[in-house]
């Protein structure tokens, strides 16, 4: 049967179109090469696959998605999208639709899924704190207000990650604290608090083995480090005073610590207020050097094999992406994908990187060996890109 005939039949018998769609959906497929792209201004996400580089679905009605992020269920079928307006949306990648959606706070920033895959934690700015939900139903299980000091003033919560032992770890931006919430009993969390970790922790992450939690500090030069194997040792400062007393440069977009960029025992982190990427020797947590880059780094992410580190920038350098070769510790490539590069995501083994170019309404796919642009997908003001490989990483 020719396609036109089929389409004519569909016009006459609309149910036939539905049946064709259903049978197409019924074809079994895996989710290991799937992902989502956040379309921040239109409140929608695209479901894409990275093998053929195509769009599978577009789902709208997710609210304000500026600064939205996502984590995945352990079966990598569902994405949980955290919206700026407090929305938490569970998306069924295979059916290409919303499975469940709630609005759980006034203003939120991100979240994580627990080690056992049963809990979703969301970090909120307003009201400041963490809420924990059942991953299957999104029913509220625990509410942990981030109040501190004598007056229990609420703090904005940032840098929420999951850690082994069904724990969530996060930082209190206003109070300068790090908290560990032990969720082994989800309705009765046990919270361990660390005060005076440094001024204005802006984001945090864990090492890929879940051993260390690291918070980047905005209010001073340095990072706060917590050994999650031995939390009783307390939080210590690393890379203290890396600015060496020099006046910091203005930061037109806050840096992020999406995932700990590790290569051969050396970690790569954005400096705040310096146009540098800092290197940390993870054996002794001392500075291992620094690399000059084009501007204020926003994301500093390692290719999964650790051989390259890719960096994007705050305005006005946000049209560029630089690639650091981790062996020579030099910038080996400067790409100019276009105005407002917001995020980068590697395919699970790193042969491609997907880059969102907000103002060009495109997501570009680059070959990480040749730096050639392989494809370009239209997207409406794209921001975060999240692939299902995140389902199986500690920390997300």
């Amino acid at each position: 049967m020719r396609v036109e005939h089929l389409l004519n039949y569909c016009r006459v018998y609309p149910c036939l179109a539905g049946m064709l769609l259903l049978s197409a959906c019924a074809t079994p497929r895996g989710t290991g090469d799937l992902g989502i792209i956040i379309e921040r201004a239109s409140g929608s996400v695209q479901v894409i696959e990275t093998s053929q580089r195509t769009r599978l679905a577009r789902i709208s009605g997710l609210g304000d998605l500026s600064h939205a992020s996502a984590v995945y269920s352990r079966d990598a079928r569902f994405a949980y999208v955290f919206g700026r307006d407090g929305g938490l949306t569970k998306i069924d990648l295979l059916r290409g639709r919303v499975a469940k959606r709630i609005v759980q706070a006034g203003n939120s920033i991100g979240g994580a899924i627990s080690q056992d895959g049963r809990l979703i934690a969301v970090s909120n700015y307003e009201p400041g704190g963490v809420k924990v939900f059942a991953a299957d139903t999104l029913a509220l299980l625990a509410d942990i207000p981030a109040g501190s000091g004598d007056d229990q003033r609420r703090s904005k919560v940032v840098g929420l990650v999951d850690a082994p032992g069904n724990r969530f770890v996060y930082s209190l931006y206003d109070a300068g604290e790090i908290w560990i919430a032990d969720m082994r009993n989800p309705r009765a969390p046990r919270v361990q608090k660390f005060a005076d970790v440094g001024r204005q922790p802006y984001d945090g992450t864990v090492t890929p083995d879940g051993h260390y939690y690291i918070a980047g500090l905005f209010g001073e030069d340095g990072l706060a480090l917590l050994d999650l194997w031995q939390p009783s040792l307390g939080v210590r400062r690393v890379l203290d005073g890396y600015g060496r007393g020099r006046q910091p440069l203005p930061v037109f977009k806050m840096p992020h610590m999406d995932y700990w960029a590790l290569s051969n025992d050396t970690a790569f982190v954005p400096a705040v207020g310096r146009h540098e990427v800092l290197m940390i020797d993870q054996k002794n947590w001392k500075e291992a050097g620094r690399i000059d880059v084009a501007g204020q780094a926003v994301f500093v992410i390692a290719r999964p094999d650790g051989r390259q580190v890719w960096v994007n920038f705050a305005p006005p350098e946000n049209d560029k992406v630089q690639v650091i070769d981790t062996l020579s510790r030099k910038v080996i490539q400067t790409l100019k994908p276009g105005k407002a590069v917001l995020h980068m995501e590697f395919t699970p083994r790193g042969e491609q990187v997907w880059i969102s170019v907000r103002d060009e309404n495109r997501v570009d796919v680059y070959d990480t060996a040749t730096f050639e642009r392989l494809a370009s997908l239209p997207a409406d003001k794209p921001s975060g890109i999240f692939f299902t490989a995140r389902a199986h990483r500690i920390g997300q």
Partner: protein
Amino acid sequence: MRSVKHQAGVILAVLGVLWMIPVFAGIPLARQSELLYLLEQDCGSCHGLTRRGGLGPPLTAQALTGKPAAMLREIILNGRPGTPMPPWKGFLNEQEVDWLIHVLITGKTHAR
């Protein structure tokens, strides 16, 4: 002679009013749309796309009630030490900042 003076007075008064109205008319429409885009996207990355706040405070008309325009101009141009608010004077001139404050407070992109 008197009428000439009178005319001059009228002209001055009219010019004065005209000066008041098109303070922002010096910003070409194309630049205005760039500024609105910057407000939504770049200010929005800390203050929210809908200006209801994020790491930075909300910038809704309600939230800005009672805040003097001169203070807002100073903060936008020169930043706010001790917070992540950077100085935007390299991106915006004073007239553009005043126009953005006008947009924030009135929700309108024109002068009246």
